[in-house]
């Protein structure tokens, strides 16, 4: 059996979520091929071929794939699917967008957001915002899977040089069109890949106060996140959101500041190795999952912390 992993990239570089997904695929016993579809993404294909455990890279370079429109990518994956017993993608917003479309085109029930591979047809996945872990068995002959990236260690890259097979596959469904993208520019690490994350909640009171987190983030090399309440209040943009429906993170250190700890937020960060909570309300549920809790006013605690680390 061979698994096809769909690479996540931005046409310039491979995203680490691809390496997490390869790691999940490697638990299925079989060869692993990687699909790199994009525009002028030769460098990504080279990077992909260097990932440990990959035996072949399928490389498709054409403008219909530049922006990963679900209609075009799903048709491409479907056309390549015959040779594969499993197709895996990271549960990023891209993977979540096109993979169910692939599954339906193949008449397969997708297994979303797996956190463990028990056997080639049995997987674990969180349900109910992570309050329960379901062990599920699929009866489909072909498996379509999205992978919770924080649950699998990234395979190393740089050591391998798999064959790169360039394909001419053109699939313009012609029913959707990319207009524009407004992506946050930041020198900080990506939220889902950072070793340290510091997040602010409603307690931050406004967007300007997030600068109190920046000083600490700079010193620790941390990414900055937020609770849904902070995003809904307009303090920070949507891509900061950590939680059930935002980003799932599991850094070595997660610092929650002014976050009460709703179930939906905990779902996005409770697999972090060490959790710190700073909140002036000692009854906040966040303290029940924190390794270290500090009951304090964040407006005095944060500047003090910045000066002492």
């Amino acid at each position, binding site marked *: 059996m061979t698994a096809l992993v769909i690479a996540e990239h931005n046409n310039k570089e491979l995203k680490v979520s691809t390496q997490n997904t390869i790691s999940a695929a490697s638990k299925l016993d079989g060869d692993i091929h990687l699909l790199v579809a994009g525009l002028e993404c030769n460098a990504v294909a080279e990077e992909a071929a260097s990932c440990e455990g990959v035996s072949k890279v399928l490389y498709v370079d054409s403008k219909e794939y530049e922006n990963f429109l*679900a209609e075009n990518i799903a048709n491409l994956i479907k056309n390549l699917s015959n040779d594969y017993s499993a197709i895996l993608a990271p549960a990023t*917003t891209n993977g979540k967008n096109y993979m*169910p479309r692939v599954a339906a085109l193949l008449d397969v029930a997708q297994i979303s957001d797996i956190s463990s591979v028990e056997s080639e047809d*049995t997987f674990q996945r969180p349900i109910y915002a992570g309050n329960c872990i*379901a062990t599920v068995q699929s009866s489909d002959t072909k498996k379509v899977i999205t992978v919770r990236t924080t649950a699998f260690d990234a395979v190393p890259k740089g050591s391998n040089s798999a064959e790169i097979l360039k394909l001419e596959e053109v699939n313009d469904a012609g029913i959707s069109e990319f207009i524009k993208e407004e992506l946050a520019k930041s020198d900080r690490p990506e939220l889902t890949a950072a070793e340290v994350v510091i997040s602010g909640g409603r307690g931050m009171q406004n967007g300007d106060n997030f600068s109190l987190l920046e000083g600490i983030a700079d010193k620790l090399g941390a990414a900055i996140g937020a609770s849904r309440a902070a995003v809904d209040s307009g303090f920070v943009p949507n*891509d900061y959101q950590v939680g059930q429906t935002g980003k799932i993170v599991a850094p070595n250190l997660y610092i929650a500041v002014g976050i009460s700890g709703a179930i939906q937020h905990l779902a996005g960060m409770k697999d972090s190795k060490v959790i710190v909570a700073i909140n002036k309300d000692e009854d906040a549920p966040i303290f029940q999952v924190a390794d270290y809790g500090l009951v304090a006013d964040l407006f005095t605690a944060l500047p003090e*912390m910045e000066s002492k680390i």
Partner: protein
Amino acid sequence: MKILVPIKRVVDYNVKVRPKADESGVDLNNVKMAINPFCEIAVEEAVRLKEAGSATEIIAVTVGAENAQEQLRTALALGADRAILVETDLEVEPLGVSKVLKAIVEKESPNLIVMGKQAIDGDNNQTGQMLAALMNYPQATFASELKIEGEKAIVTREVDGGLQTISINLPAVVTSDLRLNEPRYASLPNIMKAKQKPLDVIKSDDLGVDLNPRITTLKVSPPPEREAGIIVESVDQLVEKLKNEAKVIS
């Protein structure tokens, strides 16, 4: 323009759900049920399109047991014009639901389908994309803004790095993210009026759709428990613990 809004009955988002003691499933005894929050946002968006003159009729649909009529009534109270329950006692999966919805779409021919991006019970995030695939319609998932311009919809989507805007040809499937809108509360007169609105019940067998599950849940277990931590007295103590005990900062 006719809008179809598929919705789902789920456990209320405030309920902390636990597995049954024998791990055979999720303990749903006596828990409060509600319309899935993302579905509520989808209904609200459809109602706003109707209020703005872009839509003429809103049909809410769900696939489930008889008691899912309660959530259809909620959708009607929020402003849907009529509702359809496709009744089944099977535990349905996204693929099966999307096949039922395909049958409904073929019958009703809506120009737009607006639905929640995921249900907060199974957290699957699949049904909208699957329906779009089965109909060969374009899809705009995780929408935070939706504009109708002639035969197209211009949709801003919440993606990992920020926001993406795409244009899709109608008919299409749009799935709502949290910030698409803030749903209104149903007023008492509207709740009363909703009781008079038409609600059709169709047996899933009559649609000739294969709803047999492809995925078997072998067990449902609690997540690994986190050990209770400690409350530190000061920032000094916190920094000391992080350096010397947890060794996560240097």
